[in-house]
């Protein structure tokens, strides 16, 4: 047996002799692997975005959401919940009166609108948060101040701009004290917020504006609130808090008009949805890898036939059947691993490019998996052609036209 290094050199040499064909043969694997890398990075990005978003509300927080969460309607319910929400400020009041182990209760609504100043306009998210909700989210001002409970009580038309929204409207100018127009009404800018949360999935999480909850209710003509955050004293008291809140709200609302969830069961539901998604995408990628493998086998069989004389000659000058077997097998593996490498590069570049728009996370396990699967495909689909080559009769092979 000749050393693997030598066989590797031989294999690469013969692949380079047919550059275009080698590249085309790798195409299936390239597409499959870049799909795996890209899709997994999007799935992972989505997961960590949602996790981050939830964690931005702080630990030990129980959420009250409108509708039935998790069953049937699932996550989608919350998107439209602002229109169907039966939760009100009165509910917030009653929950805060329950006392220990509840530490804090905050409420929020969220909608979208144009925010404009001096001819510049951005269509963006408007949050209406109570002062307690702000505290739970840990929002603070980089300049100026954040509105207070006092502003909320009198529904003052004041607004704090998210870190990236301010420069989009004011350029390098100072926004403090200026009036912006939101939904036809004037609002005075009293602060610009510190950077908040992670980079977002599909949206810039720092391009938003917040105002007192009651101000937002008036602006959007709503009596309800969209979600209520209830902060428990510590982790152990979460189940107690959930029960207390359920009982209190149950007095006024029907069972399917609200849900009380904590981060663990919310994340569990989201992760379930995401892992099904990842699995489905992975299945599609697996099929393209399989097609890529069959492509490699096909080309290797053609290559063995074309190079029959070469095999005959190599045997005549002293190549053993094993030398020939490994030469063709390693050629197939180099093809599939090469395709895997190019696929990893393209997939990672794609994920990097996409990260301008949505959050993507290229994971080590997806890269290692891609290489592992590529090598495996090379071996599985390379064995048959290589075995055929190694069994060729040298005399007949030398005469082959």
């Amino acid at each position, binding site marked *: 047996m*000749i*050393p693997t290094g*030598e066989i590797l050199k*031989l294999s690469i*040499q013969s692949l380079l*002799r047919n550059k275009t064909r080698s590249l085309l043969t790798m195409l299936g694997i390239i597409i499959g692997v870049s799909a795996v890398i890209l899709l997994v990075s999007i799935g992972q990005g989505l997961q960590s975005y949602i996790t981050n978003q939830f964690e931005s509300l702080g630990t030990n927080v129980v959420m009250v959401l409108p509708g039935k969460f998790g069953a049937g309607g699932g996550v989608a319910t919350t998107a439209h919940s602002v229109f169907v929400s039966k939760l009100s400020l009165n509910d917030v009041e009653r929950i805060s009166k329950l006392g220990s182990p509840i530490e804090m209760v905050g409420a929020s609504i969220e909608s979208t609108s144009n925010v404009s100043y001096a001819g510049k306009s951005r269509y963006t998210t408007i949050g209406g948060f109570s002062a307690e909700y702000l505290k739970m989210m840990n929002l603070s001002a980089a300049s100026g101040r954040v509105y207070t409970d006092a502003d909320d009580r009198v529904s003052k038309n004041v607004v704090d701009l998210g870190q990236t929204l301010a420069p989009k409207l004011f350029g390098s100018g100072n926004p403090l004290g200026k009036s912006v127009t939101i939904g036809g009404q004037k609002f005075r800018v009293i602060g610009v917020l510190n950077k908040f949360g992670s980079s977002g999935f599909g949206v810039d999480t720092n391009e938003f504006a917040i105002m007192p909850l009651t101000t937002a209710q008036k602006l959007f003509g709503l009596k309800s609130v969209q979600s209520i955050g209830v902060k428990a004293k510590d982790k152990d008291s979460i189940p107690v808090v959930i029960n207390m809140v359920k009982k209190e709200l149950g007095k006024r609302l029907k069972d399917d008009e609200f849900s009380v969830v904590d981060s663990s069961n919310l994340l569990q539901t989201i992760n379930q949805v995401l892992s099904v998604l990842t699995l489905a995408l992975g299945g599609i990628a697996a099929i393209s890898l399989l097609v890529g493998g069959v492509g490699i086998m096909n080309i290797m069989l053609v290559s063995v036939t074309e190079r029959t*004389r*070469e095999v*005959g*000659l*190599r*045997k*005549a*000058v*002293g*190549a*053993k*059947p*094993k*030398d020939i077997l490994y030469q063709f097998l390693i050629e197939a593996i180099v093809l599939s691993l090469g395709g895997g490498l190019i696929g990893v590069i393209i997939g990672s570049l794609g994920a990097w490019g996409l990260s301008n728009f949505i959050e993507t996370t290229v994971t080590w396990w997806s890269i290692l998996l891609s290489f592992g699967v590529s090598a495996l495909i090379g071996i599985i689909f390379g064995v048959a052609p290589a075995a055929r080559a190694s069994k060729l009769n*040298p*005399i007949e092979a*030398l005469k082959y036209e």
Partner: protein
Amino acid sequence: MASLISLSKVTKTYRLDGGVEVQALRGIDLKIKEKEFVSIIGPSGSGKSTLMHIIGILDSPSTGLVELEGKNVGKLPEEKLAELRNKHIGFVFQAFNLLPRTSALDNVELPLIYSGVSATERIRRAEEALKIVGLAERMNHTPAQLSGGQQQRVAIARALITKPSLILADEPTGNLDSKAGDEIVSLLKELNAKGNTIVLVTHELEIAKKAKRIVQMKDGVIISDKKI
């Protein structure tokens, strides 16, 4: 002196798909000694190539005994035969059989890859072999960039590189014009003068006469064996 290669009562029978049998060799006795220059001549179909493949232990006889340096090679496994071929035999074929799109140097070093010789040593010896056949200037040319005669020289350099006990050339001039063919035969003669043992298969008497011994074949048997 002991024989380099010795064949006794060698026969080779091919069985065709229809069950018809073709007797390519019917009882060959032949001994070739070191430093000999033997030509095997005979009409097409007389069994020359079959005989050469058996001498080069690329093929095994149906019956009979083949000994290389006194050792019976009949029962050896394929792996071992490959090793012996690599060490003792250098083939030159009518159709050159060079690897396409591969430099002369890479073509010549090929047998040494299978002897486990290091890359630098391979290149050194391939350069040396190409110098011997007069192609020192063409080492990086691919077969497509060489004339037929030059390609056959590359093939001869490849046969020489392992310093084999025996060089077997099967109609090496068959694809060449008479001038290039003469040059190849002169080269083989030169190599023999330097001590290489050579078997030259041909169907042209003019070429066969350049050897020191002529073995004449017909219908799978040797009909004459003369020293010149």
